[in-house]
C-alpha cells in the first residue's frame, strides 16, 4: 500500500486497540493501488460511525455526511461527475438501519457506486447497541439477555433490491477481500462488499469471543468459502457465514448513471 494514500499527520487513528476497521481500510487502499486509479479521481463518502471515520485518514477527496445519508450524497457526486470513482465506506447500522432505505433504492436504481460495509455486528461508536445485522441471541448493550430479532442477510437484501455485484469477505482473508474489492470497484453498476470486521471492545467482550487477535484468527473457523460451502450439508454449515461472490451480472438496462456517462 502506498503511504501517500494516507494522511500521515492524522495517524494514529481513533479506533480501539485491535479494531478491524484499520485492516479493512488498508485492504481498500491496496485495491485502489492495484487498480492503478488516479487518486484525484477517487472520492470516498461516509456517514457516521466507527467505520465512517476511515475516509478522514485517506488522502483522497472525501465527504463525511449525515448518519445513513452517505449513499444519497455519493449518488449526487456520481451524477454530477460520472468520471469519478465513488466509493462509500459505511457501517452495518449506518447502511442497514438508518440508511436502509437509501441502500435498497440505490441498488434498485443501479447507481454506479461501490458500497463497502465495515460490518462489526453492532453500533460501536455509541456503546455497542444492537444493529439490524446483530445475529440472533447475541448480547449487546440494548439486548442484555440476547437479541430476540432475526438479522438481515445484507447480501440477499442487496441482491433482492437489484444490486448487480454483491460479495462478502472477512478481514482475515486479506487477499480474498482485496480481490473482491477490486472487482466491485471496476464493476459497472451498484456494487456492495460486506466486509466482516471485529469489534473487540463491545461485541467481542459481551459475547465472550476473546481478544482482538482471537476474534480475527477465529474468522477462519466460522467464515466458509462459497465453493467449499456448496459441498457441505446445512447441518455442517450451522453457525457459519459464507464468503465469496454472490451476484455478478450486467446492468438491468440503461440506468440513469450510465446514461449520464454517455452524455459526459
Amino acid at each position, binding site marked *: 500500500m502506498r503511504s501517500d494514500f494516507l494522511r500521515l499527520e492524522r495517524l*494514529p487513528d481513533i*479506533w480501539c*486497540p*485491535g479494531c478491524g476497521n484499520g*485492516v479493512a481500510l488498508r485492504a481498500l487502499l491496496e485495491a485502489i493501488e492495484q487498480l492503478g486509479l488516479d487518486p484525484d479521481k477517487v472520492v470516498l463518502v461516509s456517514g457516521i460511525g466507527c467505520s465512517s471515520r476511515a475516509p478522514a485518514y485517506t488522502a483522497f477527496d472525501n465527504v463525511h455526511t449525515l448518519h445513513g445519508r452517505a449513499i444519497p450524497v455519493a449518488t449526487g457526486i456520481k451524477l454530477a461527475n460520472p468520471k469519478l470513482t465513488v466509493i462509500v465506506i459505511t457501517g452495518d447500522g449506518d447502511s442497514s438501519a438508518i440508511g436502509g432505505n437509501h441502500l435498497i433504492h440505490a441498488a434498485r436504481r443501479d447507481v454506479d457506486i461501490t458500497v463497502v460495509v465495515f460490518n462489526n455486528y453492532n453500533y460501536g461508536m455509541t456503546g455497542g447497541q444492537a444493529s439490524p445485522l446483530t445475529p440472533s441471541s447475541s448480547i449487546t448493550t440494548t439486548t442484555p439477555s440476547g437479541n430476540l430479532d432475526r438479522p438481515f442477510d445484507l447480501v440477499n437484501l442487496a441482491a433482492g433490491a437489484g444490486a448487480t455485484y454483491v460479495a462478502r469477505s472477512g478481514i*482475515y482473508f486479506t487477499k480474498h477481500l482485496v480481490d473482491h474489492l477490486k472487482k466491485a470497484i471496476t464493476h459497472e453498476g451498484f456494487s456492495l462488499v460486506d466486509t466482516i470486521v471485529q469489534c*473487540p471492545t463491545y461485541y467481542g467482550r459481551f459475547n465472550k469471543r476473546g481478544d*482482538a*487477535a482471537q476474534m480475527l484468527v477465529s474468522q477462519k473457523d466460522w467464515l466458509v468459502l462459497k465453493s467449499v460451502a456448496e459441498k457441505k450439508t446445512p447441518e455442517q454449515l450451522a453457525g457459519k457465514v459464507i464468503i465469496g461472490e454472490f451476484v455478478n451480472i450486467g446492468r438491468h438496462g440503461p440506468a440513469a448513471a450510465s446514461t449520464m456517462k454517455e452524455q459526459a
Partner: protein
Amino acid sequence: MAEKKTYKIAHNRKWCKNCGICVAVCSKHVYEMDSNDRQAIVNPQDCIGCQMCTEHCPDFALIVVEVRDE
C-alpha cells in the same frame, strides 16, 4: 540452493496500540508481548516476509521489507 532472504521490520511505536494481532498471526514467532503487555520484536531473524503482520496491523504500524546487499 538459494540463499536465505533476510527482512527488516520497521515498527512505528507511536502508532502501535499493542493489540497483539501481529503476535497471533505470525507463524514464526517473531513477535511477543513483553511483561508490560507491550508488543516486542524478539526473533527478527526468523522473519520469512509473508506480510501477514503488515496486512493485519489495524494501525499501519508495521512494514516488512526485504534486505538486499547490492
